[in-house]
């Protein structure tokens, strides 16, 4: 591990943090290494608190320790608790993952937004401007990850901002700051990718051959052109409730426009023929 990496554990070292963020002002993101997640939900709490998100009610889901269930308009970090059948001596093994908005490089929500409320920021993250959003709900249906949602009492769409306000101030996003195991790593996206590749190599060498990266590059996930918040997983994406091959609608929509054009021609012909063909 590098010195920069270790800074995540020194909570009060604001100077180093500022230096680090200054170096990485362009393209930032999250690398969530699920192998070291302990399911403490500090990320969920820190996110709620920093972003002053409304509560989701006191729900008992019956799904292991997961009472948050899914990302949503007021839940921008969500820890999944997967109980897998396991080998001798144990009833099951844990898979834990802190899920978050992926800040896709080709973002379906941004593509869909008719008001320009959803923008790509100077940090290469995807941000919903609450003063613009008119709550049309199109982004909700467009997101292939089921991340963004409309808040019913408020009428607008909300999702993770990657702590845009904190980034502006040179700070680490609240969830990454609160993570006690560095499962959530924040930083320059290229640096995170290199670090993630190293981590996979390390795990493979240690015998954890199931480890792989989800959405770390354009090649790994052509449907989104890669994610600025990507993950290291130990099982198929479905196990964590992630889509195996998400595709931004813009990639397939040309056929629908062509189809509409053909239907429009047919409508025009039908109208003219109906009028001319009468007796």
């Amino acid at each position: 591990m590098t010195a920069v990496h270790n800074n995540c554990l020194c909570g009060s070292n604001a100077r180093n943090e500022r230096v680090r963020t200054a170096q990485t002002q362009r393209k930032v993101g999250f690398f969530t290494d699920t192998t070291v997640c302990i399911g403490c939900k500090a990320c969920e709490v820190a996110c709620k608190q920093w972003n002053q998100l409304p509560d989701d009610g006191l729900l008992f889901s019956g799904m292991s320790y997961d009472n948050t269930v899914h990302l949503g308009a007021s839940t921008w970090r969500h820890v999944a608790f997967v109980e897998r059948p396991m080998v001798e001596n144990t009833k099951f093994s844990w898979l834990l993952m802190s899920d978050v908005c992926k800040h896709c490089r080709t973002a379906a929500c941004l593509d869909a937004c008719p008001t320009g409320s959803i923008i790509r920021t100077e940090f290469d993250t995807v941000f919903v401007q609450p003063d613009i959003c008119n709550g049309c709900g199109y982004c909700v249906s467009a997101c292939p990850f089921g991340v963004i949602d409309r808040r019913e009492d408020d009428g607008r769409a909300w999702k993770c901002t990657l702590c845009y306000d904190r980034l502006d101030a040179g700070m680490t996003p609240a969830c990454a700051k609160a993570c006690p195991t560095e499962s959530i790593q924040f930083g320059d996206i290229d640096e995170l990718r290199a670090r993630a590749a190293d981590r996979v190599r390390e795990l493979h060498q240690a015998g954890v051959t199931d480890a792989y990266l989800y959405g770390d590059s354009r090649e790994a996930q052509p449907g989104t052109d890669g994610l600025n918040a990507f993950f290291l997983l130990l099982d198929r994406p479905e196990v964590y409730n992630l889509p195996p091959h998400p595709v931004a609608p813009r990639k397939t929509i040309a056929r629908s426009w062509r189809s509409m054009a053909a239907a429009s021609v047919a409508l025009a012909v039908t109208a003219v023929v109906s009028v001319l063909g009468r007796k």
Partner: protein
Amino acid sequence: MSDVTYYDVPVLKAPVWKWFIPAYFVAGGIAGASSTLGAAARDLPGLRRRCRRLSLVALSVGTAALIADLGRPSRFANMLRVFRPTSPMSMGSWLLAAYGPAAGAAAVLPDKIADPAGIVAGIAGLPLTGYTGVLTAATAVPAWQEAGRSLPVLFTASGIAGAASLLALGDHNDQEAAVLRRFGIAGKVGELAASAALEREVGAVPAVARPYKEGRSALLWRLAHGCTTISLLLSLPRKRARRREQAGALAGIAGSFLVKVAVMEAGKASADDPRATFHLQRARNSDSLDNR
């Protein structure tokens, strides 16, 4: 195919749209098709006038429904803040902005202005009738996304059938009735054919096709086709009979409305089913489970 999910929790968020949006899909389709017929009916002043009036009424109802569905209706005008070709909703907003004034002018202003405005509305009405099919397909919802080719055709045909049926409710001379009959038959046949095409298009992956085969959405889907079929049969005889025409018109309106409601419900059911998304994406990439 593996059937693993995360406690059956939906991977997608279900569309948040209330019934206003299918209502807009119906009204917008009727407005567009009616404007097009109005522009084509150059030598039938009575029919032309009724087409233009229907367009304006449908447009007003549709726009009101659109605004009512917004989480922040007062910010409706933000729809015209940007021009975003990747968003069919943005394109639709601009289309409405172009179509609306033309359709309004064609309906209420004197002929000198109404006639050219009617032509503009007729041309803008073409994409207005079917773009909502593109809008629906351009989502992550499997039952919509997979129907990317058939949905725009289905929505256009449904618009034609709806407009022809609504117009047929009124009084017409024999010539006008013959025009409406032909226009309506084309729309209804198109609606049934596009529905069959849609079922084929989504049929490759059973989990994607399910909402069109099982449950509430499938019931609405079949009911729509039943209504449209009855309407089609009633409109086949050339001989005029007022009662039969009106019964056929009512069935046609019901069919054209229900088919869009059914598509909306199918989308909600599809988004709620994580298997639809998982199976579709695995099938598309035809990869083994090892190949993540």
